[in-house]
């Protein structure tokens, strides 16, 4: 009898001892963005463009972008993105990066005029939708309020109350919470509401993401668009 009990115990420990690996398909297309876009550049003045590059899992990575100007006689640009307005007109400014299997690129149109005018982004928007069989839907807007970001959901927002530990995130990868900014646990499951997210820029994240945090179950997401 003792032997049988011992065998059972050993079997249990052998079977239960192993924490294995679950693989998450978290690959996304890399993204390169010019982060300080301008609409126009004052003639005979210069401007340092900046960019960010998100790699194939949505993590920010330091790379050397290739800068080009469509019309070098109107705007010249160096390898580091330092642009100089030489003549009236407009030019396509392009930042790009060749990664294994593809190319990330961002293009803006810049005119040369009397003043340098930064591109003003007043807000962004999107729609969260379920990617699971748990209910989740709703339109949202994003707006910068001082140094904070405000995420506002409209009256059409609805989320399942059945999940334990539903959390909302900002992320650059819609498939994982790795490197995502956890906003907070969801407390409102229907109707309009908002979140204030301190010290976050409107260009910092690409997705609003909903996850059941304790069980790492993705519920849904919404892409943040202009």
């Amino acid at each position, binding site marked *: 009898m003792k032997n049988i009990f011992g065998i059972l115990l050993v079997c249990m420990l052998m079977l239960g001892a192993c924490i*294995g690996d679950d693989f*998450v398909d978290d690959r996304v297309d890399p993204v390169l963005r010019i982060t300080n876009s301008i609409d126009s550049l004052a003639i005979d003045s210069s401007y340092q463009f900046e960019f960010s590059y998100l790699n194939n899992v949505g993590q920010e990575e330091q790379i050397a972008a290739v800068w080009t100007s469509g019309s070098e006689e109107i705007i010249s640009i160096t390898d580091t993105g330092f642009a100089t307005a030489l003549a009236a007109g407009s030019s396509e400014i392009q930042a790009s990066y060749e990664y294994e299997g593809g190319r990330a690129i961002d293009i803006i149109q810049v005119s040369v005029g009397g003043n340098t005018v930064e591109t003003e982004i007043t807000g962004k928007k999107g729609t969260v939708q379920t990617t*699971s069989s748990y209910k989740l839907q709703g339109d949202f807007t994003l707006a910068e309020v001082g140094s904070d970001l405000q995420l506002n959901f409209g009256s059409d927002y609805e989320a399942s109350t059945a*999940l334990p530990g539903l959390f909302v995130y900002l992320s650059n990868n819609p498939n994982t919470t790795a490197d995502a900014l956890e906003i907070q646990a969801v407390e409102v*499951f229907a109707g309009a509401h908002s979140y204030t997210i301190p010290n976050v820029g409107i260009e910092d994240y690409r997705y609003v993401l909903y996850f059941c945090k304790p069980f790492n179950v993705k519920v849904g997401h919404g892409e943040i668009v202009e």
Partner: protein
Amino acid sequence: MKKLLFIGILLSFGFSLHAGGPWPQKKGNLYFKVSEWWLVFNQHYTDQGLIDPNVTTGLYNTTIYAEYGLTNRLTGTIYAPLLSRNYMNNLVSNTTKEVIVPGEAINNIGDVDISLKYAINKKFPVSISLTLGLPTGIASAGSQQNLQTGDGEFNQMLQIDAGQGFNLSKGVSAYFSTYGGFNNRSNGFSDEVRYGLEGGLSFIKNRLWIIGRVNGVESLKNGETAETFSSTSIFSNNSEYTSYGAEVALYVTKRVGFSASVASAFRGEIIAAAPSYSVGFFYDMSK
């Protein structure tokens, strides 16, 4: 703090497999079983009854189950998961192969059930029983508080069982039993109606038993949800399922035998979508 994860109700899969039917033990008789029950799942039934993936979760219980005849009509029962292990796998990036969320595990005693069963009628066996579910397990552990060996609540279940045994032919016996019960749960958990049907056939002079079961739990959905719960911590409720199970029991001596069983859900809400298994040995003084 009130918490119930998906696995909370899974403990009841194991519990249902130990139902003793309407038959009481004779005074002084003991039925004793040691078993290993386990469940590993990477998908679950959602609140819509559909199947969604989740991080692979395992639950292993080393359990004793005993029935003892206090009188010829009154039987005391205990179900005790003496060693319960709950783990979750590492989440690993398929792109970078880096660990995104490290896996965790806990080991502890599980929730203990004790019950008293009283035989109302022995000619056509009918019994009533009261089961007390004691929150002896851990209701939340790990960095995300998502591991548990119990549901953290004290419940009381009133159950009625009925059944009948008969001989089909020489050397072949059979029985059927059914039960219905009401599970009153505390700490904001929804109450439940439980039901089941079981049938068994014996061969080789009652030394080999083949048993089939259907069990169900229907939530009254009168407890708290994530919306009404004051805390924003992990909390789920209103789990329910209909499951089927099969068991083979073989007496290797007059009183000692081995058993193996499997159970899985036909349908469910907020519950694992994977079969559970159990193997064990028993000592049956009634033989």
